[in-house]
């Protein structure tokens, strides 16, 4: 009896040792990445939160605690409330909608074998590799009010010449077009990869049942694509919301700060107007909006990451 017990004890301690080794290994795997996150992302975010709750100026080293005053100032700033917030949401929603619809369309268009298929895919791949700031230069030049090719083309068609970058909505449109150019191919290529491995039988069954092309798309293909599509849309939402590069190059937030998004607003508050408190408060508000959005989507994301990647 004594022997048996000691064997069990030995097994138990061995198991515990194995478990400890496994945990050590798991920690070892994440520690470098965790350190990078803590030092360069988590700590700065905490710092931003601290700044947003204090009155920080260059001249006064005291930095007194002011509670939510910076946030209140932010929301009583009519520019932030009436321009920056709507701009950010309009840009995010419009960009996402156009990129999604176009991305699906392009993927469906390319989902057949034809001569020159690989050339077209290569051409599509290219915009994704282009720096957003360079793409922005490209579109600023094409939509240049005097010499841009878009104006020239419109004029040749007998349409009125628009000075794109001197109006709020046309300037926003140019920024949205640049983003659509940069990111639609990403949607298209990931969706196409999923379409290429779509099992043909449900599609055929639907056709035999007399479904037309639209019905097949709506009831068979779209549900099949939805995991990949959801992840793409989630990722794009986060990235559209924080977009900075194109606005900076194309309009720098102008004319008269009317095309500013929250990233640009926060940047300018800090570096142009030295309002450290409200700049950081704005940046933190943006983070909170995305955090809440992210948390709402968390279950969807966690459920989808496993399955969808295999499809692509």
């Amino acid at each position: 009896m004594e022997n048996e017990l000691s064997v069990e004890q030995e097994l138990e301690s061995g198991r515990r040792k194995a478990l400890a080794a496994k945990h050590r290994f798991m920690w070892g795997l994440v520690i470098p990445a965790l350190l990078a996150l803590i030092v360069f992302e988590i700590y700065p975010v905490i710092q931003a939160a601290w700044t947003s709750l204090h009155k920080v100026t260059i001249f006064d080293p005291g930095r007194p605690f002011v509670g939510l005053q910076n946030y209140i100032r932010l929301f009583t700033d009519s520019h932030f409330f009436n321009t920056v917030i709507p701009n950010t949401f309009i840009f995010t929603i419009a960009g996402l909608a156009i990129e999604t619809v176009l991305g699906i369309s392009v993927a469906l268009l390319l989902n057949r074998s034809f001569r020159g298929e690989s050339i077209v895919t290569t051409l599509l791949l290219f915009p994704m590799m282009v720096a957003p700031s360079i793409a922005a230069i490209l579109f600023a030049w094409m939509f240049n009010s005097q010499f841009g090719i878009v104006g020239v083309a419109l004029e040749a068609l007998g349409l009125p010449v628009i000075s794109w970058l001197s109006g709020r909505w046309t300037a926003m449109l140019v920024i949205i077009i640049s983003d659509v150019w940069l990111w639609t191919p990403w949607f298209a290529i990931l969706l196409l990869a999923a379409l290429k491995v779509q099992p043909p039988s449900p599609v055929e069954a639907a056709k035999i049942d007399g479904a037309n092309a639209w019905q097949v798309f709506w009831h068979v293909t779209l549900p099949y694509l939805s995991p990949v599509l959801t992840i793409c849309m989630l990722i794009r939402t986060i990235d559209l919301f924080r977009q900075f590069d194109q606005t900076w190059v194309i309009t720098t937030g102008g004319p008269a700060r009317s095309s500013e998004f929250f990233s640009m607003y926060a940047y300018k508050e800090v570096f142009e107007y030295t309002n450290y408190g409200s700049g950081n408060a704005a940046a933190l508000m943006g983070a909170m909006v995305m955090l809440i959005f992210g948390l709402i989507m968390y279950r969807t994301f966690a459920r989808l990451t496993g399955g969808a990647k295999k499809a692509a």
Partner: protein
Amino acid sequence: MAEEIIVKGQLKLYGWRRALWFAGIVLVCFFFVFPIFWLVLTALRPESEVFYVHRGTHFTLDNFIRAFDAPQFKEAMFNSAVLATLGTLLSIGITLQSGYMLGRFRGKLRNAWFGLIYIMRTIPYITWGLPLYAMTQFLGIYDTYWGVLGPHLAVHVAFFSLVMKGFFENITASSEEAALVDGCSYWGVYFRIAVPQVLPGIFALSLICWLWTWNELLFAMLLTSADTPLLTVTIVQFVNEIGMEWNLMAGSAIIALIPAILITLFGQKYITKGLYM
């Protein structure tokens, strides 16, 4: 798995449908290629013709030479290349480990790490970029490689860990389990069995990671200045300084696009694997 392979050309198109489809393809190609074509054409025009790019008849390579000779341009290119290379080497190492942990293990620690990365992924750059400006100055690494490298590492951890996780989930764990039973250590299993199996994915992600760091603007703007000029910032400053000289702008933009062109042409087979950002 045979039935999963779609029958190629199952939706053969004829007549006007075929014409419509073809028109669609042409339109798509036009939309995505024309801006680049236009950039190249602008870059090849002499200064006198840049405002009439569509009507000009003269071509020149002067713009590339002038852009290249612009103050800080070569230095900025070199710095961006060094930063991108350092960033890629460091990030791929730490991100691969983090992805392995996410892809191979279960339990609280793993879920907590997944949650943390997910949250970090949602936080906009500007939120942590602003404090980093003061922080890097305090640490004395403002306007050096290290100052910009740090935030890039954090970005890569948040963005690429989940992609790496997918790589490991797509290979079977049985040989790793067998090696563990045979007494191989965890680290031995990781380096000798798991990593070699995902090398194509690592390669794809390295290309994307390199290009991302090369392309990035906001951190470069916030954290560097005259001592460590970076390419995107230098070119964007061009826009403000030289304003109207679009031929020169186009020339410098094309030089900045060279890595993107090379990677698209020669790495395209791999890249699609690493696109889940």
